[in-house]
């Protein structure tokens, strides 16, 4: 009975996570984007807690705690601060795909993930449908994050796409694979993101990627190497 309630809650949370994923693709205002991201992370933290209630694996609680601290509080407030300093509020430029197109593509991606997974993990879907759908949502979220990363032009929104990709990885990890390994990977990726963030911070987060390259050169970041050659 209780596990049924839990699995219902998990389903509802997954639905909400999908809604936030679609919002991340289509939102243009930066502050709203950051807010959506922190809501998504919060949902994942809650999801991890509920899953802990189902399978009693303590690592899940750890994940919930880490997620809450890092992604609900730390990273959004960090980006929020940066955003106050720089003067972009909206990201209106898109390369390759406009949000409408991205949304359709992401629909196709989810379908593809579903088909591929049901071929690869056919039995798993029958044994444990909830965990199967969780894994599908996780991987789809990763792909959607990837979509954001390459369809946005501003660096700061690319970072948001990257972060939501990592959220997808986390969901996948919660549902389908062995946890300790995944925790390590997650932390590693968080570190990478931090590195990217700090690099961008030093050079100027308000630029598009092309300008960023120019500024890197302008500020002599790569000058020394070229000089040596």
């Amino acid at each position: 009975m209780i596990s049924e309630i839990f699995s219902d809650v998990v389903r509802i949370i997954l639905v909400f996570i999908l809604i936030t994923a679609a919002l991340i693709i289509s939102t243009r205002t930066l502050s709203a984007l950051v807010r959506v991201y922190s809501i998504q992370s919060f949902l994942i933290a809650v999801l991890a807690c509920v899953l802990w209630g189902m399978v009693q694996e303590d690592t899940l609680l750890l994940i919930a705690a880490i997620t809450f601290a890092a992604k609900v509080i730390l990273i959004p407030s960090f980006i929020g601060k940066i955003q106050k300093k720089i003067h972009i509020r909206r990201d209106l430029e898109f390369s390759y795909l406009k949000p409408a197109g991205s949304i359709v593509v992401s629909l196709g991606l989810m379908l593809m993930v579903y088909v591929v997974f049901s071929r690869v993990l056919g039995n798993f879907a029958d044994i444990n449908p909830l965990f199967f759908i969780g894994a599908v949502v996780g991987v789809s979220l990763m792909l959607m994050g990837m979509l954001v990363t390459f369809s946005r032009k501003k660096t700061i929104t690319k970072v948001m796409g990257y972060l939501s990709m990592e959220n997808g990885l986390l969901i996948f990890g919660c549902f389908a694979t062995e946890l300790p390994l995944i925790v390590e990977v997650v932390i590693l990726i968080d570190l990478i993101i931090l590195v990217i963030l700090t690099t961008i911070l030093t050079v100027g987060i308000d630029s598009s990627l092309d300008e960023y390259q120019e500024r890197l050169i302008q500020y002599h970041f790569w000058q020394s190497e070229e000089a040596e050659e």
Partner: protein
Amino acid sequence: MISAESVLYCLVNAGIILLLSPLFMTIIKKVKARMQGRQGPPLFQMYYNLLKLLSKEVVYSDTSSWVMRITPVVCMAVMILAALFVPVIFIPESFGGIGNVILFLYILALSRFMISLAGLDAGSSFGGMGSSREMSLSAVIEPTIIVVAAALATVLGTLDMFEMISKTSAADIATFPTLLLISVSLFLILIIETSRVPVDNPETHLELTMIHEGMILEYSGRNLAFMELSHAVKQAVYMGLLIGILVPFGIINSGEFLIPGILIAAVLFLVKGSVLAVIIGLFESSMAKMRFFSIPTLFMTAFFFSALTIIIEVFA
């Protein structure tokens, strides 16, 4: 043979929706005004407006034809008919094809068609522009609405809206988690169909971007009252549908209705509708009007959630 219950249903359901729809309209206006730091109109303002309009003289443009004369009546009739499709008080047995979701969509399309035609009829440039915009938008919105209806039908396993709402009211949201996704779509459709910000601006008669207001610009007196009331009813019908799908508690099932139950259901609908109206007002206040050519993004979002629902329901 139409039973007494069906007749009662028609009277009560259409009556409640007709009665409450202007109130919801004014609540939205009031919330928007408060958000802008204004006092806003009194809660019964739209009733006063309608009463005043009903007693005023009707003026037709010289160039207008019979289309202009019948459109308000057709719109009003269509909306009252549409109001029968969405049970907000109690759910009767199906009768006479009422409740079929596809019929519902095409009835609404009829009113849209008539309004656009009437917009062209008077020969004013505003009306023509409004009609042209309305038609180009509806070419995009109609497939989306069909997909939303298809998603509803897939999840609840029926095309009949009475059955849909009786199913949702019998179960809770955890039984059909994907209804949450459809609700997002329905909310967007509600915004788009009732010409609200970010698609259209219901407040203005000056802006060149207006769509709905452009088409009804030529109406006066009783006809204008009909057009405005039918617009309000359309909004209330969509609100009733969203409420019936998402928070259906309080709606009475067929065969067990009594007078107190009906009263309670009516009050509950009033409360839920008012809350939804406040939410719409807040949503509108937080948005700027979109550029005409970026509106399809909104449709795509609605399409996405419904198509996603279908995928989840069919495959998972």
